[in-house]
């Protein structure tokens, strides 16, 4: 079956699911728990996009995400380079990184909020601590797998140590960085969302708790749907950036 045919069936499948959801939501479901898509769309404007408080909460979350992500990339790259610079350094310190990576970080969430407060700082910090690990792991790996033939070849052309770093190592590391960016973005987003949901006194956590506790499924669905769409768009943006910077990769 052709790709276009499959895509069509997939779209029909999704449309069918939405139809089922609509019928179930309208006629069969407990209206305190499930809202049909039509209701969700109806409240989307007034309660979510049109409500400045909600919009501000979402905007703030985006700001926290951007800050946490930028910090994770910069600090992660620097740490990764430092750890990966020498074989001894890597063998000594890399296990600590892996150890920390293996802990379910969510148990540290109350601690982060305790230390950084309930404002954006705690959420940025928590997102940062999630996003930094894939960057470090990939940077260390990148430093190990520089192709030695390329280094030797460039040295044979008369390149100094600086020139080798500029023409061989740096472009290689940039490629490695972009390979890990999508995962880092997803992890940072995870951290920020966890922190936001945890702090129920303001921000996204306030509204999710409000809608859930007052059994208002339509605005809750709408809010979550908005966040999901944002996440998908962000993922696509990072993927596009990656494609542009790795054009040379056949």
């Amino acid at each position, binding site marked *: 079956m052709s790709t276009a045919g499959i895509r069509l069936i997939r779209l029909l499948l999704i449309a069918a699911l939405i139809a089922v959801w609509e019928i179930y939501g309208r006629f069969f479901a407990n209206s305190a728990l499930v809202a049909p898509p039509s209701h969700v769309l109806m409240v989307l404007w007034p309660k979510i996009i049109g409500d400045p408080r909600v919009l501000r909460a979402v905007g703030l979350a985006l700001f926290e995400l951007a800050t946490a992500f930028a910090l994770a990339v910069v600090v992660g790259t620097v740490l990764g380079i430092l750890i990966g610079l020498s074989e001894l350094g890597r*063998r000594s310190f890399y296990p600590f990184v892996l150890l920390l990576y293996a802990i*379910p970080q969510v148990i540290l969430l109350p601690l982060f909020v305790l230390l950084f407060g309930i404002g954006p700082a705690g959420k940025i910090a928590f997102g940062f601590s999630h996003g930094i690990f894939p960057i470090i792991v990939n940077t260390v790996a990148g430093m190990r797998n520089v192709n030695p033939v390329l280094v030797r070849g460039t040295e044979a052309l008369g390149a100094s140590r600086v020139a080798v770093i500029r023409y061989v190592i740096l472009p290689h590391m940039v490629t490695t960085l972009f390979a890990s960016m999508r995962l880092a973005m997803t992890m940072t987003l995870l951290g920020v969302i966890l922190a936001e*949901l945890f702090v129920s006194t303001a921000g996204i956590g306030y509204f999710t708790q409000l809608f*859930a506790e007052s059994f208002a499924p339509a605005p809750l669905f709408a809010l979550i749907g908005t966040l999901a769409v944002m996440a998908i768009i962000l993922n696509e943006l990072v993927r596009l950036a990656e494609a542009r910077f790795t054009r040379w990769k056949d």
Partner: protein
Amino acid sequence: MVPRDRILVASIQGAVVATLLGAWYFSTHSSRLLSLFLPPPERVWSSFQVVAASGQLWAAAKVTLLTIAQAYLIAAVGGVLVGFLVARSDRLLKLFEPLLSGLFAIPLTMFFPLFILFFGLGPESKIAYGATYAFFPIALNTIAGFSSVDRLHVRAIRSMGANAFEQFRYVYFPAALPVTITGLRIGFFICIASVLGGETLASVTGVGRSIALSAELMETARMYAWIVSVVLVTLVLNLLVYAAESRLRRES
């Protein structure tokens, strides 16, 4: 690695750990302000003993462990089944695999409030949430495992007259096993993390709730006791699973 290098690495690592522990001890003993946020090690230890002796430790752990077990069972059975069925047909594969992997690319955490809405604050919401989250890597890996079986091997064993069951037993199953097990491992740790996360965010019982509660009540020593316990258990689990996987891999 040369034995001498190994000793050097071990000494560096030992020195780092010793320095951190020493810094913890001395800084919390010298600064009152710091000990509000980071209690001295012996207070964390005594809190742990109190929590363990009072039965709170086991009560919360029991809830969490049961939740994880149920969530993982659902995710594992569901994930492997769905993965296997989807991988059997090329059409189903092209239809569903992109949907699943696309969905998994979003942090499913943002759907957590829905689980609270549907299932309430009890363990059921965490079971459902954990099962949903862990389902994806298991299903996706199972799909990958079964769809990447070398056609050459299938043809070879068919030509030897094997029936469907024998084909599965001798070719499909062993070929798909490593990738599927990787998925089960990833799903396991995702299940643990999401159950703990759910308990921390919104729960009445469980280890996650205990951590959140002790933070709320500013009982920092107790909170650290809980955190350290979970960290130690998770690390041990990681080592066990890693060892088991290596053993399985070597034998297959």
